[in-house]
């Protein structure tokens, strides 16, 4: 008998010194790379950093064993990796040399990471096209903004309400997926997105094309999110408040993503992604699971929307167009479908790249689109491809 072999997977290994070194190297190196990237204005340094980043991936492409080694290190020392990651995230604003621009970029990138993780439930896990994530995002933003402006509801209360409203929208959006599929379903979601955008543009109670202004910022225990943070003799710009809020949201999204991915639900989504008919024959209620994917997507996207509205204090329909949905979709595909880390990296890359390419002023949109196309051609599986689930001893 092979006793207990079913428990032995690559995950059950004890953490070694090498594992810890790898983890520290990756996390600190990544943070450093990102930090330089955020803080520099020198285009030569930006290009050099991008080259380092690209070289890293070229290396992974050529030697997949390196990736396996890294993954196994993170599995072996999960707790340490998480702890170090949390510390990095917490102290990161202090490393930004008080640059409110860098913090602003981090807030936006984190919100997009949440949106991309939300869409990943559908596009990555279940391969359902959804071009309406931008609409769910907008519904969340408008819902909490209106509640705050017109009824003076506290931000912390608008957050769950907006999420519930958007989840309802998600169900409505998912309803046609009962029968339509693929390109046809893609068009249904595009149509929903446009209808929502146009309605926001036309209703007077949403402020029409001018949108809503003066959305109040949240407060915690008397501390307004518009005030700077004074801590340990350091003074962080007010953006830091939203940085931490967005980071908490990313953490929530990651937890949701992990829990759903490693559950019966994630398996059912993966099953219908691969072969819908075979999935039905395993007893999977395909329609229900598709609706759930839409609902979960809308739920998380609405959170991001609420935070965005409170952060910029001004929203208009043009923040939530079809092209926003496409951008989110691109983040998922570039990052790597059904890979949580990949999706987050994709979101950061595609948020920061256009900003940092501002030096190319007029050419940056062109630049980004060309990069996206090249990406789809050269590394269609994304930066971090999907990895097999591991069971046992975790």
């Amino acid at each position, binding site marked *: 008998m092979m006793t207990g072999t*079913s428990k032995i997977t690559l995950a059950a290994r004890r953490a070694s010194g090498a594992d810890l070194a790898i983890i520290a190297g990756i996390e600190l190196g990544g943070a450093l790379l990102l930090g330089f990237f955020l803080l520099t204005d020198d285009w030569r340094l930006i290009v050099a950093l991008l080259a380092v980043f690209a070289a890293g991936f070229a290396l992974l492409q050529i030697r997949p064993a390196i990736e396996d080694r890294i993954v196994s290190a993170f599995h072996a020392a999960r707790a340490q990796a998480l702890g170090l990651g949390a510390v990095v995230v917490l102290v990161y604003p202090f490393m930004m040399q008080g640059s409110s621009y860098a913090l602003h970029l981090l807030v936006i990138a984190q919100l997009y990471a949440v949106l991309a993780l939300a869409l990943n439930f559908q596009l990555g896990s279940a391969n359902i096209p959804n071009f309406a994530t931008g609409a769910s995002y907008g519904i969340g933003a408008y819902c909490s903004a209106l509640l705050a402006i017109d009824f003076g509801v506290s931000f912390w209360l608008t957050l769950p309400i907006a999420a519930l409203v958007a989840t309802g929208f998600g169900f409505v959006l998912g309803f046609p997926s009962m029968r339509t599929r693929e390109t046809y379903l893609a068009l249904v979601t595009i149509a929903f997105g446009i209808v929502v955008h146009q309605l926001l543009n036309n209703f007077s109670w949403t402020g029409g094309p001018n949108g809503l202004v003066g959305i109040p910022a949240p407060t915690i225990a008397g501390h307004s999110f518009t005030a700077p943070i004074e801590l340990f003799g350091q003074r962080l710009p007010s953006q830091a408040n939203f940085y931490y809020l967005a980071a908490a949201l990313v953490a929530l999204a990651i937890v949701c993503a992990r829990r759903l991915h490693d*559950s019966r639900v994630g*398996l059912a989504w993966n*099953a219908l992604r691969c072969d819908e008919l075979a999935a039905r024959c395993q007893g999977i209620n395909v329609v229900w699971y598709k609706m759930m994917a839409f609902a*979960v997507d809308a739920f998380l996207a609405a959170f991001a929307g609420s935070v965005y509205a409170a952060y910029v204090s001004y929203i208009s329909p043009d923040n939530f167009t079809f092209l926003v949905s496409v951008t989110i979709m691109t983040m998922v595909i570039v990052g790597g479908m059904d890979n949580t880390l990949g999706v987050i990296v994709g979101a950061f890359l595609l948020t920061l790249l256009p900003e940092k390419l501002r030096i190319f002023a007029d050419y940056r949109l062109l630049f980004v689109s060309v990069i996206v196309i090249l990406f789809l051609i050269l590394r269609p599986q994304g930066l971090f491809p999907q990895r097999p689930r591991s069971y046992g001893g975790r």
Partner: protein
Amino acid sequence: MSGPVLEARNLSIRFGGLVAVAGVDLSLSAGEVLCIIGPNGAGKSTLFNLISGIYRPSSGSVHLDGRAITGQPAHRIAAAGIARTFQSSRLFTDLTLVDNVVIGMHCRTRSGVLDALLRPRHARAELEAAAERAGELLRLVSPDLYQRRHTLAGALPQADRRRLEIARALASEPKVIMLDEPSSGMDDRDTDALIEDIHMTMAERPGLSYIIIEHDMRLVAALPERVMVIDYGAKIAEGPFAEVRQDRRVQEAYLGQRAAHA
């Protein structure tokens, strides 16, 4: 014994002008093995599709344990206890073998979205237990598959795909299992092993009933107690293999086509 586990009466379906299945009656009692044979395009696979809810019959009825399941959606029928494999295997190729089998247990596990989000420990434990059972099942079907349980199903050779599909079907603890040409793409040695496997699972799960579509007459001769012959959508003969193969209409249906094999 009480009534039949599975009973189909007067089952028919037409695709445009083509009557693919024409008034087929079928009855299966617990623990029985029924083999369906017939020339290409006779309507055998379509019969499976009708029973498993992929197609909706134009007329007729299907009962499982006396309960009508006619025209119900496929996932309900799977949950009610009918599992199947496909003629050209339909595995979840981008998932591991264990994942494939665990998905087969979908209707024997419970956790939903809220469980996964709010009671992760519970949901996880359920999944781990399922994976544990999946490992056992794979070991039962083939130690080789068990060894490879953490690799992707898409990388398996043909014969192993068939085995994995059978394991996935068994995972749902069905009352009836329907195998569509399980030996296709297998060589003689694999087929012998397959026959072994089926004998073994029969011993392991005495109540389980089988319907097997087969072209390989060795398998037909070795396994079932009863054979049903379909031609042009209609049942033309039914009985023990030794009798059925003497039937004049059966020989005519197979003439030139499968006579050499038989």
